[in-house]
C-alpha cells in the first residue's frame, strides 16, 4: 500500500496543540471575567478589560478556538481512522488549520476593542465572518472528500455527527451573519434582519450551535473513543440511528424556546417549546446508549481514567439535557430565564460534556498521534480529572443555586403586594456564590494547565525519536495503531488481572479486538488486501 493511503496526522497534531493553547487562554479569560463579577474593580478601569468586552472574547474563544479546534482535531482523526484513508487533500486541510487560527487571532484583535456585531456567539464582524465561511467550506470539502474516498463500505456513525455539525454550522453561520457592511476599520456592519426577526435568527443560531450541533458533534467523539477505550462496540447501532435522525430533524427548530414571553408570535414560541421537549428523545437515546455500552465494564472505571472522563461527560450531558428539556416548558422557563441558572446550564454542556469529552479523547489520542505508548504522567491525568470534576460541580451548583435564589427573590411579594427585595439584594446573596463559581473556574483552568503540561512532556519525551521519523510516522502508522499496548493499556498498565488475557471470555467479546493481533487484522493494509 502506498503512503498516499496512510493518515495525515500532521494537521491533527496542529489542531490538538492549538486546542490546548486556546483552551488555556479562553478559560483564563473566563476566570478573569468571573472574578470581575465577584469583584468588579478588577476591570481596573480599562475599557477592553471590562466584563462586557471580555465576555464575548471568552465565549468565542472557548466555542471556536477550544471546542472548534478540538472538533477539527478529533473529526480529522476519526474520519481517517474509520474510513481507512488519508485526509482528502493535505493542502486544503492545512489551509483549514491556518485559516481557523487566523479567525481566532482576528477575534482577539477586534472583540476587545469593542468591534462586535452584537449577536450572541456570533460577535465577530463581517470580514471575519467571510473568512469563517471560506474556512468552513474548505473543512466540509476535506471532511466529505475523505468520506467519499473511503476504503470501507459504510460510514461509521461518529462521522455522521461530525458531518451534521459541519453542514448545520455552515447554514447557521451564513444565515445568521447576513449583514450589510458599512466599514472595514473599525469593522462595522448592520444585520439584514429587522428587530424581532433578528432576535429569532440570532436565537436560532446560538441554540443551533451552542445547544445542539456543537455538543452533538461530540457524540462523534464519544462514539469513537468510548468503544475504542473499552475495546468493544457501542451498545446499539439502531439506537444511534434513531438518535441521530430525531436529533437532526428537531434540533434546529427548538430555538424559540429561548424567546418565550417575548415579542415573537405565540405560535412560534409554542412550536419551539414542543420541539425542545421532544429533544428529550435523541438526548436520552444518546445517554442510554453510552451508559449501556459501559455497563459491562463499570469496574474499569477504577483503573481507567480516560474512561472516567468519558463517562462523567455523559453524566453531565444527561444533567444538561434534562435541564434543557424541563426549562423549555413555558412556566418553568418563566422561572429560570434571565437568571444565573442559564449560565450554569450552558456550562454543564461546556465544562461537563464538551470539556470532559475533549479531555478524554485527547488523552487517548495524543499518545497515538505522537507514536508513543502512553501519556507522560498518569497521576497528572488523575489530578486533572479531580480538578475538572470538583471545578465543574462547584461551578454548576453555585450558579444553579444563585439562579434559583435570584428568581425566588425577584418573584417574592410582601402581603401588601409590593416586591419583597431590592434587585441589589439578590446580588448580595449571589456574591458568595460568585466567589465559589470563581473557585470552580480556577480549578477547572488549573486542570487544563495540568493537561497541557502533561501533553507537553509527552511530546517532549518523544522528540529525539520523533524528529528522526516524524515524516515516516504516517507510513508505519498501521503498525503503531495496532500496537498491543495501545489498545487497552493507554492509561492503565495491565495490573488488574481482569483486564489481562485471563479475563473470562464473554461470548459477545470473543471476536473482539482484545489483543493487538486481532486489531492488525483490521488495519488499512489488511483492508486493502481484500
Amino acid at each position, binding site marked *: 500500500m502506498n503512503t498516499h493511503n496512510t493518515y495525515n496526522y500532521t494537521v491533527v497534531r496542529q489542531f490538538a496543540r492549538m486546542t490546548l493553547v486556546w483552551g488555556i487562554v479562553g478559560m483564563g479569560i473566563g476566570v478573569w471575567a468571573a472574578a470581575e463579577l465577584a469583584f468588579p474593580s478588577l476591570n481596573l478601569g480599562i475599557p477592553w478589560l471590562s466584563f462586557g468586552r471580555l465576555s464575548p472574547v471568552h465565549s468565542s474563544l472557548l466555542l471556536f478556538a477550544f471546542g472548534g479546534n478540538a472538533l477539527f482535531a478529533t473529526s480529522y482523526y476519526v474520519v481517517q*481512522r*474509520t*474510513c*481507512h484513508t488519508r485526509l482528502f487533500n493535505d493542502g486544503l486541510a492545512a489551509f483549514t488549520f491556518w485559516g481557523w487560527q487566523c479567525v481566532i487571532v482576528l477575534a482577539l484583535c477586534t472583540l476587545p476593542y469593542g468591534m462586535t456585531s452584537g449577536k450572541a456567539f456570533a460577535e465577530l464582524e463581517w470580514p471575519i465572518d467571510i473568512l469563517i465561511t471560506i474556512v468552513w467550506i474548505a473543512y466540509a470539502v476535506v471532511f466529505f472528500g475523505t468520506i467519499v474516498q473511503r476504503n*470501507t463500505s*459504510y460510514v*461509521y456513525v*461518529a462521522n455522521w455527527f461530525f458531518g451534521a455539525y459541519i453542514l448545520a454550522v455552515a447554514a447557521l453561520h451564513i444565515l445568521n451573519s447576513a449583514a450589510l457592511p458599512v466599514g472595514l476599520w473599525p469593522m462595522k456592519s448592520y444585520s439584514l434582519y429587522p428587530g424581532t426577526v433578528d432576535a429569532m435568527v440570532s436565537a436560532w443560531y446560538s441554540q443551533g450551535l451552542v445547544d445542539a450541533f456543537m455538543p452533538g458533534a461530540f457524540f462523534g467523539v464519544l462514539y*469513537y473513543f468510548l*468503544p*475504542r477505550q473499552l475495546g468493544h*462496540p*457501542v*451498545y*446499539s*447501532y*439502531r*439506537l*444511534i*440511528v*434513531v438518535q441521530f*435522525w*430525531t436529533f437532526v*430533524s428537531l434540533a434546529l427548530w427548538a430555538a424559540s424556546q429561548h424567546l418565550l*414571553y417575548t415579542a415573537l*408570535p*405565540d*405560535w412560534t*414560541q*409554542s*412550536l419551539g*417549546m*414542543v420541539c425542545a*421537549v*421532544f429533544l*428529550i*428523545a435523541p438526548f*436520552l*437515546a444518546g445517554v*442510554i446508549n453510552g451508559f*449501556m455500552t459501559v455497563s459491562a465494564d463499570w469496574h474499569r472505571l477504577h483503573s481507567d481514567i480516560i474512561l472516567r472522563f468519558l463517562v462523567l461527560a455523559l453524566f453531565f450531558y444527561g444533567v444538561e439535557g434534562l435541564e434543557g428539556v424541563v426549562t423549555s416548558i413555558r412556566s418553568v422557563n418563566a422561572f429560570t430565564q434571565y437568571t444565573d441558572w442559564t449560565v450554569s446550564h450552558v456550562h454543564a454542556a461546556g465544562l461537563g460534556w464538551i470539556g470532559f469529552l475533549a479531555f478524554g479523547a485527547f488523552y487517548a489520542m495524543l499518545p497515538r498521534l505522537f507514536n508513543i505508548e502512553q501519556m507522560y504522567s498518569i497521576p497528572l491525568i488523575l489530578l486533572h480529572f479531580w480538578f475538572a470534576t470538583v471545578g465543574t460541580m462547584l461551578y454548576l451548583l453555585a450558579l444553579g443555586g444563585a439562579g434559583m435564589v435570584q428568581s425566588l427573590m425577584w418573584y417574592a411579594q*410582601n402581603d*401588601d*403586594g*409590593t*416586591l*419583597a427585595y*431590592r*434587585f*441589589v439584594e439578590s446580588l448580595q446573596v449571589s456574591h458568595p456564590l460568585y466567589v465559589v463559581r470563581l473557585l470552580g473556574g480556577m480549578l477547572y483552568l488549573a486542570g487544563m494547565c495540568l493537561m497541557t503540561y502533561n501533553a507537553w512532556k509527552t511530546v517532549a519525551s518523544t522528540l529525539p525519536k520523533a524528529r528522526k521519523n516524524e515524516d515516516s510516522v504516517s507510513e508505519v502508522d498501521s503498525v503503531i*495503531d*495496532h500496537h498491543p499496548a495501545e*489498545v487497552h493499556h493507554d492509561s492503565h498498565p495491565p495490573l488488574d488481572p481482569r483486564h489481562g488475557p485471563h479475563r473470562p471470555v464473554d461470548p*459477545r467479546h470473543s*471476536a473482539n*479486538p482484545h489483543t493487538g493481533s486481532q486489531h492488525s487484522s*483490521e*488495519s*488499512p493494509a489488511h*483492508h486493502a488486501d481484500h
Partner: protein
Amino acid sequence: MSDFLSLWIGVCVLGSLFVCHVLIEWVLHRPDERHEAHKVQYSHQSWGDVRSYDHPVPRSWLYLLYACTLFALIYFSLYPALGTFPGVLRWTSQQQYKDEVGEYNLVYTERFNRYLARSITEIASDPVARTTGQHLFMSYCSNCHQGAGEDRTHYPKLTDRDWLWGGHPEQIEATILHGRTGIMPAWGSVLGEKGVEETASYVMTLAGYKPANPEEVAAGKEHFAAYCAFCHSAGGRGDPRQGAPRLTDKTWMHISSKDALSEAGLEAGVRAAIADGFVNLMPPHWNTLDRAQIHVLAGYVYSLSN
C-alpha cells in the same frame, strides 16, 4: 398571516412528525441482512477499531417517544402552535399577562386606592401605610437614594428638613410625580478663577466659617448679589421654586461628607461647584407607578422628617 402560510406550517409540522415515526418504525423493524451474511451475532458493522452492536432499541425509549408525540399533539390542539390555529384553550401570552395583572389588581389595587382618600400627613402617621411606603421606596427609589437617610453625594438627604424643592406634602408628591431637574449653571468662565475663589470665600462665610481675607469676601459678596442671589436668594436662603439649595446650613448635597469635614476640603468643593455647575435629575414617576403608590410614597418620605 395568510391562511396558506398557516396551512403550510401545520402540514409541515404534522407531516414531519408522521414521517419521523414511519422512519423510526422502519429502522426498528428492518431486518439486517449483513447480520445474517456475517453470521456474527452481535457485530453490526466494523470499522477498523470500532464497531457497533446491534441491540434493539429499548422499549422504554420507544414509550418515551410515543409520550412525546402524544404531548406534542395535545399541546398543538390546546395552544397556538400551528400557524393561525388558536388552539382549543384560546390561550395567548397577552391574555395571560392581562389576567395576571387583573388578578393582582383585584387583590391589591383597591387596597391601594383607599389610600388616595386619605391625606399625606395621615398616611405618614399610619404605621401600616408607612411600611408599604418603605417597601415601595426600597424597590423604586433606593437605587439612587439608598435606604432613606443614608448619606450619598449628589443625592439629597430625605431625612432632614432641608429641602431643595420644598417639604410640604403636596410639594413632595409633585416631586415624585413629575420629577425635578436641578440646574446650577457653570460660572467658571463668567467669574474667572479669581472671581470663583472670591465667591467661594463669601459662600464659606454664609456657612459660618470665619473669613481669612475680608477683602476677598467683600468682592465675593458683590459677585453673589450679581450672579447668584437670583436663584439662591439674597444671603443664600435658597429658593424651592428653582430647587436652589440653602447655602447657610451645613448640609451639602454635592460635596461629600468627608470633604465637608475640613474647611479646606469644603472650600475646594464649593469652588468646584461654582466653577463647574450641575445638572441633577430626579426622574418622573407618573409613567411607572400609579397615583395611589405615589401618594403612599409621598406619605412615607414626609414621615422621614416629620
